[in-house]
């Protein structure tokens, strides 16, 4: 087990074999899950797909390094729609993602209301992922202030988004609010830079050479890392998280990642050969270091793929939400469901 932040040194650039094997296992599970979701979409078992294939080398180590739990003693996660690897690393059941894809009543994240990859897990402080880009960066200072208030607390707040999204107001809000002198907040801002916003390339939309440079004027610690290398990503995340945990100050981390199946099902959700595949890269490493053989890993992939195929068939039989359930949870507490009607 390497996932406790207390024992992960930020300096380790090479992970121990068992740790790397564990990273691989989770990355593979994440990839297989996304491929299942894409297949479900293509076969008509869901209306829309968006997810994180190509970000696993970043999202999995992130989930492993999280100080997991409920409440301000633990880390808060303000994720985006490419965070399935993080959820699996936290321990999420991949079948729940199939349920959200199929918008069943059993979908624990939204009860069949929201698109795939829109997580919300109270017991792990995973606050609701919502479709509007970047709003998580406006909320992050709030959970970070709660983290900071815990005497001796080590919980931090992590907010993650894409590159194009940094043009939104909320990204600047997070920079401003987390760096106020004397009132700095323990926020780790992560930008997963895949060099695209839907169809729009990074070039032509940015004056910054590195998005992470935007932290500098605010005295925010920054780094840009190779998010397609699981070890580099792990080390970069660990270093950044250690800093935020210990210093109770913000950090802006930019990770260069891939978009392996394009933006979403709206753009076809087909594998993009030109992009660097972090899973293939890690598998090569594992073979080179003789930690796993390709055959072992291929077999694991086949097995996991089969498992999720079976699961998707079962999910197909689960109930859809009822029409009346639109009224559930409009309000917390005992308010009449529709207020005034």
């Amino acid at each position, binding site marked *: 087990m390497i996932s406790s932040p207390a024992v992960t040194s930020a300096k380790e650039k090479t992970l121990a074999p068992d740790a790397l094997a564990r990273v691989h296992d989770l990355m593979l599970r994440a990839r297989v899950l996304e491929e299942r979701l894409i297949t479900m979409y293509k076969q008509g078992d869901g209306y829309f797909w968006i997810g994180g294939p190509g970000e696993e080398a970043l999202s999995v180590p992130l989930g492993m390094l999280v100080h997991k739990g409920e409440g301000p003693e633990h880390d808060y996660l303000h994720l985006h729609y490419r965070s399935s690897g993080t959820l699996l690393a936290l321990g999420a059941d991949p079948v729940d993602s199939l349920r959200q894809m199929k918008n069943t009543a059993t979908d624990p994240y939204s009860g069949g209301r929201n698109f795939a990859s829109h997580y919300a897990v109270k017991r792990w402080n995973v606050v609701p992922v919502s479709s509007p880009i970047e709003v998580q960066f406006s909320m992050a200072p709030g959970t970070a202030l709660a983290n900071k208030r815990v005497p001796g607390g080590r919980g931090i707040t992590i907010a993650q988004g894409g590159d194009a999204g940094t043009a939104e107001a909320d990204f600047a809000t997070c920079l401003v609010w987390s760096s*106020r002198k004397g009132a700095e907040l323990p926020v780790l801002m992560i930008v997963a830079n895949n060099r695209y916003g839907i169809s729009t390339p990074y070039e032509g939309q940015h004056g910054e050479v590195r998005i992470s440079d935007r932290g500098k004027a605010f005295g925010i610690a920054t780094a840009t890392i190779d998010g397609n290398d699981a070890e580099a990503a792990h080390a970069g995340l660990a270093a950044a998280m250690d800093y935020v945990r210990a210093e109770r100050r913000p950090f802006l981390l930019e990770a260069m990642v891939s978009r392996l199946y394009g933006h979403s099902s709206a753009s076809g959700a087909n594998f993009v050969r030109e992009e660097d595949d972090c899973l293939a890269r890690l598998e090569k490493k594992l073979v080179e270091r003789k930690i796993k053989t390709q055959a072992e890993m291929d077999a694991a992939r086949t097995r996991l793929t089969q498992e999720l195929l079976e699961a998707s068939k079962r999910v197909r039989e689960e109930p859809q939400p009822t029409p009346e359930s639109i009224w559930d949870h409009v309000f917390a*507490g005992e308010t009449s469901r529709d207020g005034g009607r």
Partner: protein
Amino acid sequence: MATFVQAMRLALHVGEERLGVTDIFGEDVGPPLGGVFTATQGLRTAWNTPLDERGIVGMAMGLALAGQRPVCEIQFCDYAFNTVDLLKLAGAMHWSSNGAFACPMVLMTPVGAGIRGSIYHSHSFDATATRLPGWKIVMPSNPRDAYGLLLSAIRDPNPVMYLAPKALLRLKARPGEELPGEPGDEKALSKMIDAPLGDRSRWRAEWPKMEDLFVPIGEARTVRPGRDVSVVTYGRMVQASSAAADEVAREGIDVEIIDLRSLHPYDWPAIRATVKKTNRVLFLNEDTEVTNFGEHLIRRTVEELFYDLHAPPRLLAGKHVPGVGLADNLEHASVPQRAEIVAALRELARHEA
């Protein structure tokens, strides 16, 4: 007799002491000013934010998601229109997470005209607010409700918007409508809780021992019973309609005034009862009149009470123009004035079905 704004401050103090409020924040909310209308003077947990309304709402949402009970302020509701997406998100939090995450924040903001505030200090927010599913919306019209609704807002597990009619903030409680626990002598109260002019760095408020008063969200109040015509209103227009009712009373028109107090959920039984009683109803508010909350109430009235109506129900509201102009003529022509209310009441009362 506490004023409206003192009542807010006292409620916030109770919130800090007994209801778990750890943060009261917004632009100029902390020392030295304690709010541009003094609502947050002397409060232990009040602090100044950056000039960023989106950040203010986001901070409140984050704190609420972390189980805190934040109270934030937008300095004027006129400056809340860059946060509508976040407000929608706060209202959707519990619902879209299938009940996992509540968002128990309070957003206070001064609303309405009546202080010669020109284009950007005269906006209303009731129409916009009632278009935010998942929010509760309250709008007190007097110090006692200001106190009791703020306590209820803080205790509520949902996002609650607290619209404070800025022209009423200096209004004093009427005899018999004191806040429970406030000192009898208003000079004494002022000495205790109003920050002094000049250097305030060493000033500390001295808080009276206030008692609880939870005005239920969703419950209207009959301000004035009457037989002939009903006025369903809230906020500043409660005062305006009372004056108008006095005027038409001299002509023998007996007006019933319902102060909704909560816009969502709203007290439909109270509206139904008054319409069934007088059969003539004026809906009155000062927000602009196209796609106005009063129009929702009219819609429901005609939907459910069509045959109880002895006259077409009326709306009196602000004009559909881009803002309230500064000159008195402009403000008076833009938001309902007493004379117009009087005219509407007369017309309703005299209308022959």
